[in-house]
């Protein structure tokens, strides 16, 4: 058997090199070329630019320090993308129980569960529509909005919801960065 293996090494080496070139170089470059032609913005991560600065990616959740913005879900990596991370805490973890209790104490007893839990990537760009509605009051107060502006904000939150594709693929969700950009566009940027 061993002599057979040694005899096979020479063809093995050639096949390995040829197939490596095909699958390791030709393939990714071909995909890159076609993608750059057909989907130039998407292949670069759907970046959002405002006033010549790259604010972030539409796909990647980020942290907002001011209470005048809609907040993303808690993140196990603190919204660092290098590397992405989940909490990996199990269903009987005491640490998870106390984390959830702490968040509940901050957010309020009836906060939607996505605002109490961390996501799988630590970079979830979305919150549930309930979580967006839940934050409206805080934003009204932080930005000192009047009654008509409050209604405008409520309408904005409703229209920000992305519904499941064909009604059943995926979950209803709201992209936090897009909603916050719309917020700034409608009511101006809050003082730093």
């Amino acid at each position: 058997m061993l002599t057979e293996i040694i005899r096979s090494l020479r063809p093995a080496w050639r096949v390995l090199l040829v197939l490596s070139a095909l699958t390791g170089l030709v393939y990714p470059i071909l995909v890159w070329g076609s993608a750059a032609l057909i989907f130039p913005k998407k292949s670069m991560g759907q970046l959002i630019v405002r006033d010549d600065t790259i604010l972030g990616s539409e796909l990647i959740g980020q942290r907002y320090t001011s209470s005048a913005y809609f907040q993303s879900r808690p993140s196990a990596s603190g919204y660092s993308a290098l590397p992405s991370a989940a909490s990996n805490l199990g269903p009987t973890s005491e640490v998870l129980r106390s984390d959830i209790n702490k968040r509940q104490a901050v957010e309020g007893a009836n906060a939607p569960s996505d605002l109490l839990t961390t996501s799988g990537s630590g970079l979830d760009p979305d919150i549930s529509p309930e979580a967006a509605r839940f934050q409206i009051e805080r934003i009204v107060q932080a930005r000192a909005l009047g009654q008509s502006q409050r209604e405008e904000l409520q309408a904005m939150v409703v229209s920000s919801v992305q519904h499941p594709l064909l009604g059943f693929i995926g979950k209803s969700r709201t992209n936090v960065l897009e909603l916050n950009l719309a917020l700034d566009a409608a009511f101006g940027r809050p003082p730093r």
Partner: protein
Amino acid sequence: MAQTEFLQIALLLAILMACAAPLGNYMAAVFEGSPVIQRNPLGRLERQILRLCGTPADAEMRWWEYAAALIAFNFLGFVLLFVILISQDLLPLNPNNVKGMAIPLALNTAVSFVTNTNWQAYSGESTLSHFAQMAGLGVQNFLSAATGMTVAVALARGFRRDSSITIGSFWTDLVRMVVHILFPLAIVFAVVLVGQGVLQNFAPNLTVFGLNQGRQILPMGPVASQTAISLLGSNGGGFFGVNSAHPFANPTPLSNLLELFAVLLIPVASPLMFGRLCGNPKHGRTLLYVMLGLFLTTLSAAIYSEAMHNAALSGAASLEGKETRFGIASSVLWALSTTATSNGSVNAAMSSMSPLTGGLAMLNMMLGEVVFGGVGSGLYGIVMFAVLTVFVAGLMVGRTPEYLGKKIEAAQMKFAVAAVVAPSAVILTGAALTLSTTVGLSAISSRGPHGLSEVLYAFTSAAANNGSSFAGIAADTTFLNLLLATAMVVGRFVVIIPALAVAGTLASKKTTPVSLGSFPVTGWLFGGLLAAIIVIVGALTFLPALSLGPILEHMLMLSGRTF
């Protein structure tokens, strides 16, 4: 659980079943060297590659020559990948200046990708260069999947051929799998993924400023090409540490559905390919139905379990580790599909799912990765169980067992039993070694039964060549890197070599015509018996271990205990 979520599962399965037959037929035609396929452009590419490699397309091999070629090829693949990983700082396309990988981790990673396991003890976005991703790991994503398929094809020839001393050419089968099946599927799928928002570029990490002081460094790279083949080839090793939970690898609910489709596609088509190759398409369909039946059973149980109230965490925790855009049902569907198919990628944190979901994911792997299973490996795995089944049936009626016209005798039984039992032995031995040493115990991060699940899951995933991770465990220690690498190598080749031996010894036998006295290998009776044998072997071996891990944790969760 909303009805809409069941609609999504039904849609996925319906599309898969519709695609299984055409793809199965196409794959069978590819491996038979059908003239229609040889005339198309990919046929020309195949011949050019074989000529360049100096390996004639019709160089027939005996089973041990086939196995030797496979081992030599995988060994060199390992060496090449290992060298790329430790020297990535000296190689091109390293815009983020990552360092060479440490030797134990590189060893583990190289073994992991060559054996189609794709266990990840590292986070790709912070430890790998673009070159190491695409020309190192990406290559083995193709080649380890193709290797698995060659074994399944050789096994089919073992049944089909009459008194033949050879079972085909490893090089030809390998090149055909890459050129005709994986390469075109991956290109199309990768471009579709970019259309959904998956990255594909060679840029360095990008600093973004954030809307409100949310400064971040975003990873960039050839993600779509890597993700496409890692899912199609039942590899599962993601570009990112969190695999397909990462929005840059799986940005939308539609991309999630497409990725699930890619995970299941080749494994679902393979039994039909096998049926055609060995001249009994109906047997292929029976194998597929057995797999589908087992899959739907574990899937329903997991969905039910995930919807249960968690008394320990007052019910608020069901979204822990899950992405908003996918929700609960899609996350469970992903977990069960990827553990069933030996894919091992995640779109949510496995460790945070309900105890029984984690346990069922483990059970999928413990059944020997035959519920669909990996590319090729699921098929040769279930055929080993089928050999066991016809033997048991033969014992019951007192006849020499026959399978697809071949008499199953002592030699085949020894090989089949080795292939069925050995992976289980590796899982239990590895887990026991870890749990009985201080260095092993120190890697566990959770307390209570969840900690046992972490260890059991790691060894199950490694030995079954799945790569799925119950990520709590601190896997990047020299002890675990080496022990898990060993489990992956043994778990892979201890099934491949007996499977090829069965192929070779069967090919040399005379085909006996099917008579009234032959036990049918199609239909409900055979399917039921096969499913029962798969479940009984798995359950008898692992029930004690599962009781102390997921099942115990489930009971404690219901009574509100935390650790």
